[in-house]
């Protein structure tokens, strides 16, 4: 009689471990008063090939990890700042529009990226990206992007 319930519970205990490795949340927004560049520098920026970023999912740094969009391309803006152009919003690939987000507002999360410095509401106010005045950053260029731990 005792062996059977024992087997039942074995599975349960293993999955209890899924209680995530998250004593502190990842993807924290920049501390108040800190510039994007300063906060990005605290996130141990790592070299990444621009071509490896294209098509990546861009997530919201919350437990549900909502998908905000996908990386379409990387450009230098008029001031030489590196911007990630994201197909933002929409539903099932329809109705999205491109917006340009400073790379220092974003982090790498394994195969994905997150926008840590802007809320979805703020992103909705971003103008639709227009390539005029920007220069394309080719796929083989290496740029540096900060890191975060998973937000779940």
């Amino acid at each position: 009689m005792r062996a059977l319930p024992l087997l039942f519970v074995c599975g349960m205990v293993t999955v209890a471990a899924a209680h995530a490795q998250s004593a502190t949340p990842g993807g924290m927004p920049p501390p108040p008063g800190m510039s994007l560049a300063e906060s990005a520098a605290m996130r141990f920026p790592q070299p990444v090939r621009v071509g490896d970023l294209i098509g990546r999912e861009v997530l919201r740094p919350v437990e549900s990890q909502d998908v905000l969009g996908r990386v379409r391309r990387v450009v230098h803006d008029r001031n030489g700042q590196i911007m990630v152009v994201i197909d933002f919003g929409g539903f099932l690939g329809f109705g999205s529009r491109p917006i340009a987000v400073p790379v220092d507002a974003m982090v790498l999360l394994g195969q994905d990226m997150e926008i840590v410095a802007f809320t979805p509401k703020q992103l909705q106010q971003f103008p639709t990206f227009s390539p005029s005045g920007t220069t394309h950053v080719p796929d083989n260029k290496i740029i540096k992007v900060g890191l975060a731990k998973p937000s779940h």
Partner: protein
Amino acid sequence: MKSPFRPDFPPDAAVLDDHKPLIRSLDRRVLIRGGVSLGALAMLTGCDIKRPEAVEAALLAISRFNDGVQALLFDPNKLAPTYPASMILRPPKFNAYYDVMDVKPVDGATWRLDVSGLVADKRAWTLSDLQALPQTSIVIKHICVEGWSYIGGWTGVPLRLFLERVGADLRAKYVAFKTADDYPSSIDMASALHPQTLLALKYGGDTLADPFGYPMRLRTAVKLGYKNPKWVTAIEVTNKYPGGYWESLGFPWFAGI
């Protein structure tokens, strides 16, 4: 007809309240939480579920039993799948029990690897000592208990070779690690001697970057991600159960893949 599994006396519902934090922590697995019901708890090997410590002791006993079964099933000669170098994710995925901004980089020039326990040679190792040993490269999947994974390419000294060099007692039960970020960890000797268990010094052909454990971290293909301590500063060979950071919080110790 009354089910033979139904207890004669219904358990006290307060037992669920006693374990509310634990059950709430399972909220990513709503189905599982649904399984943690009074009925399931009542089936716990006849322990007295009115006492919370009895429930926890029963769950931990089952976890240890699982560890034992996994150790029995472990095949020291079976290799985990490997992948072409083109599939290596660059950079790798960062994770820790704290956010990346709290990473404290380690100075490779002054770093020492202490060796203790059941070993013949307890001399501390420098980074260049380790670099001078034969190196092996593997491209393997990092599988996290949280459910994510990525393919990474690691180069370093096979732990087996290191243990042989320091004259470790290879019949000892455990190899334990201490780290610069206070993340103690330990693995069984069979996994330590597995050919896909490395003291990793490089990722994707380049020196390990700070957030990923420079100058040296453990990387094994036969364990879940949390069994791969970064910034290792000490190795001990021992027969006394060393435990680990997450293990002390209830995670399974063996955590084999």
